[in-house]
C-alpha cells in the first residue's frame, strides 16, 4: 500500500469535494422512468392505447426533467466551482465484509452533478424533449402497441442516460451504460419484423457488450486498487499519482493504476463506436430516425467521451491510455469519413459522419482538450440531431426513400423549405463552415493537436478528415436538396395507405443491394407512379427542425460567453473532474505519455503550426479546408447554376460529374462503398470462427463429454449384458453354478485353513 490516506478527502476547493444536492435533482432521471412505466401502463389499457398519449407523457416528463435541469443549473452553477453536488436517492449496493478500507463496496443510486454532468444533462434532456416531440408525429403511423413501446423505450433511454451521466459512482454509470445499450437494442430492433433490424440490434448490443466487459473490468480494477468506485472518494485518491506525475516521478505510478484507463477506454470505444468496435453504429440506422438522432448521434454515442472526460484523472496517469485514444480517434475519423464518401444511403452517410466526429472528440480528449471534446459533443449534438431529423423528414415524406441517387431538389418542393434550410444549417456546421458552431468546436480540437507534443501527424490527419467531411456532407446536400426536382418513392409506398398496420416497416432504407451497387439506378420518372405523393412534414417536425437549426447555430454562441474560461462549455468542464486538463490552466497540461515524450526529447519548445500559434492559425486552415471540401462537392455533385455557383454541373437527379470520375479511381470507391470490408473481415475472423468453435464444442459436448459419461454408463451395462447370459432361466444351470461355486468356496476355505 502506498499510504493513501483519506486525508485527501478533506482538501477543500478540489473539484472532487462534494456537497449535498437538492432532493429534486433525483427527479431528473426518475421522471423519464415514470414516463416509461406510464407508457407501459397505457399499453395495457385498450381504449387509450391507440392515442398519442404515450408521446405526450414522454414529452411532458422529459420537458419537466429539462426544466428541472435548468433549475439545477441556475441554482448550483456557482457551487460547481467548489465541488459537485450529490443527491442520494437510496442505497443500491452496500456490502461490507471487513473494516479495512477497500472492504466495503458502496454504490448508491446517488446523483452527482457538476459542470460536466450538467452540460451533458442539459442537452440530453433538452434534445430528448425536442426529439420526443418530433417523434410524436414521426411515429404517428404506428399508433398502438408499437407507439407505446417506442416511447417507453425512449423514456427508459433518457433515464439510463441520466444514470450514466449523473451517477455518482462507476457502477451506476455502468448501469446507465448498459441501460442505454438495452434501449438502443430495443429501438434499433423497433421494426422487429425486418431481419436486418433485428440483426442490427443484436450486433449493436453484442458489440457494446464487448466494450462493456472492458468497462466492467476497469471498474473492478478501480475498486481493487482504490477500494472505492464513488467519484467523491476516488478522485482524491488519484491525486497523489497526478502529483507524482507532475513531480516527474512517472515510475511511482503503479502499473495497475495505469491499466485502469486502458480497460475503461475499451468500454468507451464500444459505446462511442470507435475502432475497432464501430461497425454497429451504421447498422443501427435500422431504427426509427428519431432514435438515430437522439441515441446514435446526439447522446448515447457521446457516453464514451463523457466517460473519458469524467475519469480524466485516471487517464492522465497512464502512459498508454491517452495516446491510444488519440490514434484510435484520429484513425476512426479518417476511416469513417472515407467510407461516408462512398455511401448512397443518406442516413448511413450521417452515421459514418457521426463515427467520424466521435473520432474527433476522442482525439480531442487525448490532446488534453476536454473542453474541445465537450464543446464538440455539445455542438455536434445539435447539428447532428438536425441532420438526422432532416433525413428522417425526407424518409417520412418519400416513403422510406433514402438513396441520394433517387432524390433531387427536395428543398424546392412544396412544404419542404424548412427541412431544406435546416439541412443546410446542419451541413454547414458539420463541414466546419466558418463561424458556425461546428467550426469553433472542431478548431479547438485541431489546434490542440498541434499544441500537444507528438501529435502533429494526427493533427494533419484530422485536417484532411475535415476536408473529406465537408465533401461528403455537401454531396448529400447538393444531390438531395437542390437541383432538378425528382423523386422516386421508397419501398413503403403501398403501405402508405394503411397506416398503423403492424407489418408496416416505415424506416427501411433502400433495399439491400441498391446501397451497394456502384451502378446508378435507372431513373424512373415519378409520374410513372401516380399513386404516390410525397407528404411534407407537419407542424411538429417543422417546429422541431426550425428550433434545432437555430439552436445549432446558436451553440456557437457558447464559445463567446465567458471567453476567458474558454467559453461556456469550457467553464462548465472546468468545474468538473475533467478540470485538471482544461487548457489555459496556467500549469500546462501534462500526461504520462507526454511526460515521457518530454523526457526523451529534451527540447520543450512551444508548439507551433506554420510558425504561428496553432489556435490562431487553425481558424484559417480549417476554414479553408472546409470550404475547399464544399467546393469540390459542389463541382462534382452540385446542380448547374445553383446559388450562383458556376461549378455545378448536375442536370439530372442521378447523374453527376462524380459518376464519371469514379471509374478512374479503380476499385477504391467500390472498396470504400463496401466499408473497406471490415464487416466481412470481422465475420470471417471472429464471428465465423466463434460459430465454428461453438459447433465444435457442441459436438464435443455431445460426443466426448457426454460420450465419456455414457461410456461410464455403458460399461456396467455391457458387463451386465454379458453376465445376463448366465441367467439363462434354466434350473440346472443355476444348480450347476451353485455346486461349482460351492466347490470353489470350499476349496478356498481348505487352502486357507491348511
Amino acid at each position, binding site marked *: 500500500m502506498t499510504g493513501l490516506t483519506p486525508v485527501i478527502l478533506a482538501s477543500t476547493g478540489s473539484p472532487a469535494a462534494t456537497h449535498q444536492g437538492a432532493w429534486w435533482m433525483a427527479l431528473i432521471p426518475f421522471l423519464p422512468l415514470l414516463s416509461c412505466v406510464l407508457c407501459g401502463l397505457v399499453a395495457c389499457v385498450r381504449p387509450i392505447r391507440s392515442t398519442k398519449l404515450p408521446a405526450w407523457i414522454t414529452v411532458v416528463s422529459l420537458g419537466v426533467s429539462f426544466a428541472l435541469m435548468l433549475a439545477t443549473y441556475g441554482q448550483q452553477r456557482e457551487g460547481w466551482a467548489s465541488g459537485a453536488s450529490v443527491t442520494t436517492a437510496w442505497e443500491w*449496493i452496500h*456490502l461490507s465484509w471487513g473494516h479495512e478500507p477497500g472492504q466495503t463496496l458502496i454504490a448508491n443510486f446517488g446523483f452527482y452533478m457538476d459542470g460536466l454532468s450538467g452540460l451533458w444533462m442539459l442537452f440530453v434532456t433538452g434534445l430528448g424533449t425536442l426529439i420526443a416531440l418530433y417523434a410524436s408525429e414521426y411515429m404517428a403511423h404506428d399508433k398502438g402497441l408499437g407507439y407505446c413501446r417506442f416511447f417507453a423505450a425512449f423514456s427508459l433511454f433518457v433515464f439510463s442516460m441520466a444514470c450514466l451521466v449523473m451517477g455518482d459512482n462507476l457502477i451506476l454509470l455502468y448501469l446507465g451504460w448498459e441501460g442505454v445499450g438495452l434501449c438502443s437494442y430495443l429501438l434499433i430492433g423497433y421494426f422487429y419484423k425486418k431481419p436486418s433490424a433485428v440483426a442490427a440490434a443484436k450486433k449493436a448490443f453484442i458489440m457494446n457488450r464487448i466494450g462493456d466487459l472492458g468497462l466492467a473490468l476497469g471498474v473492478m480494477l478501480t*475498486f481493487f486498487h482504490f477500494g472505492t468506485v464513488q467519484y467523491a472518494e476516488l478522485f482524491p485518491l488519484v491525486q497523489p499519482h497526478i502529483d507524482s506525475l507532475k513531480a516527474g516521478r512517472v515510475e511511482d505510478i503503479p502499473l495497475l493504476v495505469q491499466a485502469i484507463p486502458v480497460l475503461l477506454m475499451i468500454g468507451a470505444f464500444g459505446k462511442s463506436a470507435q475502432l475497432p468496435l464501430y461497425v454497429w453504429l451504421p447498422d443501427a440506422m435500422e431504427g426509427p430516425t428519431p432514435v438515430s438522432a437522439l441515441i446514435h448521434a446526439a447522446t448515447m454515442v457521446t457516453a464514451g467521451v463523457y466517460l473519458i472526460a469524467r475519469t480524466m484523472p485516471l487517464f492522465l496517469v497512464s502512459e498508454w491510455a491517452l495516446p491510444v485514444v488519440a490514434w484510435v480517434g484520429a484513425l476512426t475519423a479518417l476511416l469513417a469519413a472515407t467510407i461516408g464518401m462512398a455511401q448512397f444511403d443518406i442516413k448511413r452517410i450521417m452515421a459514418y459522419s457521426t463515427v467520424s466526429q466521435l473520432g474527433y472528440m476522442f482525439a480531442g480528449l487525448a490532446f488534453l482538450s476536454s473542453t474541445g471534446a465537450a464543446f464538440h459533443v455539445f455542438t455536434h449534438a445539435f447539428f447532428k440531431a438536425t441532420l438526422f431529423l432532416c433525413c428522417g423528414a425526407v424518409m417520412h415524406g418519400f416513403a422510406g426513400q433514402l438513396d441520394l441517387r433517387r432524390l433531387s431538389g427536395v428543398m424546392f418542393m412544396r412544404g419542404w423549405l424548412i427541412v431544406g434550410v435546416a439541412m443546410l444549417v446542419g451541413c454547414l456546421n458539420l463541414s466546419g463552415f466558418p463561424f458556425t458552431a461546428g467550426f469553433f468546436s472542431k478548431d479547438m480540437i485541431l489546434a490542440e493537436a498541434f499544441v500537444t507534443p507528438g501529435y502533429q501527424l494526427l493533427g494533419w490527419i484530422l485536417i484532411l478528415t475535415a476536408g473529406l467531411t465537408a465533401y461528403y456532407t455537401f454531396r448529400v446536400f447538393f444531390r438531395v436538396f437542390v437541383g432538378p426536382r425528382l423523386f422516386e418513392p421508397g419501398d413503403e409506398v403501398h403501405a402508405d395507405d394503411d397506416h398503423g398496420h403492424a407489418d408496416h416497416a416505415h424506416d427501411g432504407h433502400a433495399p439491400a443491394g441498391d446501397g451497394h451497387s456502384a451502378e446508378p439506378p435507372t431513373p424512373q420518372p415519378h409520374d410513372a407512379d401516380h399513386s404516390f405523393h410525397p407528404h411534407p412534414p407537419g407542424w411538429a417536425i417543422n417546429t422541431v427542425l426550425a428550433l434545432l437549426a437555430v439552436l445549432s447555430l446558436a451553440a456557437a454562441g457558447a464559445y463567446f460567453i465567458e471567453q476567458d474560461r474558454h467559453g461556456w462549455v469550457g467553464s462548465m468542464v472546468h468545474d468538473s473532474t475533467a478540470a485538471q486538463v482544461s487548457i489555459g490552466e496556467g500549469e500546462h497540461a501534462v500526461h504520462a505519455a507526454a511526460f515521457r515524450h518530454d523526457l526523451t526529447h529534451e527540447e520543450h519548445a512551444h508548439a507551433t503550426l506554420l510558425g504561428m500559434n496553432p489556435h490562431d492559425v487553425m481558424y484559417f486552415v480549417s476554414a479553408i479546408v472546409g470550404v475547399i471540401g464544399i467546393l469540390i462537392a459542389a463541382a462534382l455533385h452540385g446542380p448547374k447554376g445553383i446559388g450562383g455557383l458556376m461549378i455545378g454541373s448536375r442536370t439530372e437527379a442521378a447523374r453527376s460529374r462524380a459518376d464519371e470520375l469514379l471509374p478512374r479511381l479503380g476499385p477504391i470507391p467500390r472498396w470504400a462503398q463496401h466499408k473497406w470490408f471490415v464487416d466481412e473481415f470481422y465475420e470471417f475472423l471472429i464471428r465465423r470462427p466463434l460459430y465454428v468453435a461453438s459447433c465444435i464444442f457442441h459436438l464435443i459436448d455431445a460426443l466426448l463429454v457426454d460420450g465419456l459419461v455414457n461410456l461410464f454408463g455403458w460399461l456396467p451395462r455391457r458387463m451386465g449384458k454379458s453376465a445376463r447370459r448366465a441367467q439363462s432361466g434354466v434350473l440346472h444351470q443355476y444348480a450347476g453354478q451353485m455346486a461349482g461355486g460351492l466347490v470353489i468356496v470350499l476349496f478356498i476355505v481348505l487352502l486357507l485353513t491348511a
Partner: protein
Amino acid sequence: MSPIALLSLMFVPAASAVAVAAAPAKLARHIALVGTLFAIVVGLVALGDYDWSRPGAMQASGGFEWLPELGLRLSVGIDSIALLLIGLTLLLGPICVVASRTAITERVKTYYAWLLVLQAAMTGVFAARDLVLFYICFEFTLIPMFILISLYGSTNRKHAATKFFLYTFTGSIIALAGLLYVVWFNATKLLPTAFAGAGTWTLDIGVLTHAGASMSLSEQSWVLAAMMLGFGVKVPLFPVHTWLPLAHTEAPTAGSVILAGVLLKLGTYGIYRFVLPMTPAALVEHAHLIAVLAIIGIIYAGLICWVQRDVKKLVAYSSVSHLGFCVLGLVAVNGPGLSGSVLYMINHGLSTGALFLLIGMVYERYHTRDMDELGGLASKMPIWSTFMVFFVMASVGLPGLNGFVSEFLCLLGAFQSPSGLGREGLGATPGTLGPWFAGFAGTGMIVAAIYLLYMTGRVVFGQLKEPRGHHAGPLPTDLTVREIAVLSPIAVLCVLLGLYPKPVLDVVAEPVAAQAQWVWDHQPGATPAHAESHGVAAPNDEPPGEGE
C-alpha cells in the same frame, strides 16, 4: 424462531402431498395450491421471530433425537443464506402449481403429490443441521424429480430421467463418502479436548465443520475432490454437466423451473455449506482448478447455447454457463464473491425459472420449442414477448435487473487476489483467484448476450413463423391472466432485487464475511495475527453460523 417452525415448513408440503394423494383428482391442484400457499404463510409467520440482527447465527436450531444409538438427530437450523434459499423454494411452490394447471391433465394426483414432496425435501436440505438429515433430503429430491421427468416429460423422458438420477446419484454418493470420512476422522482421530464434539461419533454439521478444518492438507484435498465431484454434478460444473440439458429438455415446465430454480442450488449450497468450511486449506490450494472449470463452463456452455435449436436446451445450457459465475464467486472465498454467489443462487432461480415458464407457455400453444419452427412471436403474443425480453435481459445481467448485482459481485470477488497484478492499492481483501480469472469469466457476459439475443432475435422478433399444421388449442393466443399472475411476482422481484438489493445484501454480508474469515483462519500457518490483517480483530473460533 423455533425448530418446530422449520420442521413444519417441511411438514406442510409433505402433509399436503398426502392430502393430494388421498383426495379426488379434481381437487388435487387446489389442495396443492393451498398447501404451498399455506407453507408460505407458515414461513412468513415464522419469519416474525427471526432475529435480523444476527443473520450469521444458526437460528431456530434444535431438534429431536432420532436414532440416538447411531448419533442421528433430527436437527435443523438456518442462517440467513438458508433462509433466503428456503424463501426461494417456498416462492416457487405455488408458481409451479399454478403454472402446471393446463400442462398437466393426466395423472394429476401423482404429479402434484410429488411436486409437494419435492418441496418438502428441498426445504429439508436447506434447513438440515444433521448430516444424515441433509443427505436424506438431498437424495430424496431425486425421486420426485425422477418421477416428474419420467412420467410427465417429453419424448425422450425415460432416458433423461434415468440419466439424471444415475448421474446425480453417483455424484452424491461420492460426496457422501467424503463427508463420512470427516465423520470418521472426527470420531477416531481427534482428541475430545480439541473442541466440543470432537472425538465422538457425531453427525452434527457444525462439529463436522470444525473437524474437517482440522484435517491435514492432503486429507482435505481428497475430501474436497469427493465433495466437489458430488456437488459439482449437481451444480453442474463443466465436465459433469451433460445430464442437465437433457433433463431440462425432457422435464415438464414446473420440473424445469424447480430444477433450475432450486435443485441446482443444492450443489452450490453444498459447496458453500460443506466444501468451504470443511476443507478450507485444500480449497484455497485448489481454487484455481475449480475456477478454471467454472470458467470453461461459462464460455463453453455459452457457446454451445449459440448453436442450439431447442429453446429450452439453450436455456438449460445457459444455466451451466450462469452457475459457472456462482461457483467462481464461491471459490474466490471473499466477501464480494460469496455474497455475489448467494445472490446469484436466488437470482438465477428467478430469471431462469421464469424463462422456463415462458418457454413452457409457448410449448403449450405450439407443441414445439424448435427455433426453426417458431419465430417472430412478438406480433402474435406481445405480452409474452415483453416478459420474454424482460427475463432475457435479467438473464443477460442487465444492470437494474437482478442478475447484474450478483454477477458483478462474483466477478469482483474473483478479481480480488493478493497474488494479482501487484497489490499496491487498497484492495485489501484476500481472495484465491485474480484479475485474469475475472477477465476470462467476464467474456461470459459477451457470450451470454450473443446466445440470448440470438434466441430472442429468432423467437421473439423477425417474421412470424409458426409450426406447420398448427391448430390453436384451448389456450388463447397470448398469455392468460393466470399466466401473467405466474410471471408477475417473479418480474417484480427481479426489478426489486435489481434496484434495491440492499436488504438481501445486508443479511448476507455477515455470515458470508464469517465464512470467508473461517476459511482464511484455517489455512496452514494462519495465525491470529494473520487473521488480524484480514480485518477482523478476534480470531474466529466458532464455525461460521454456529450458535443460537
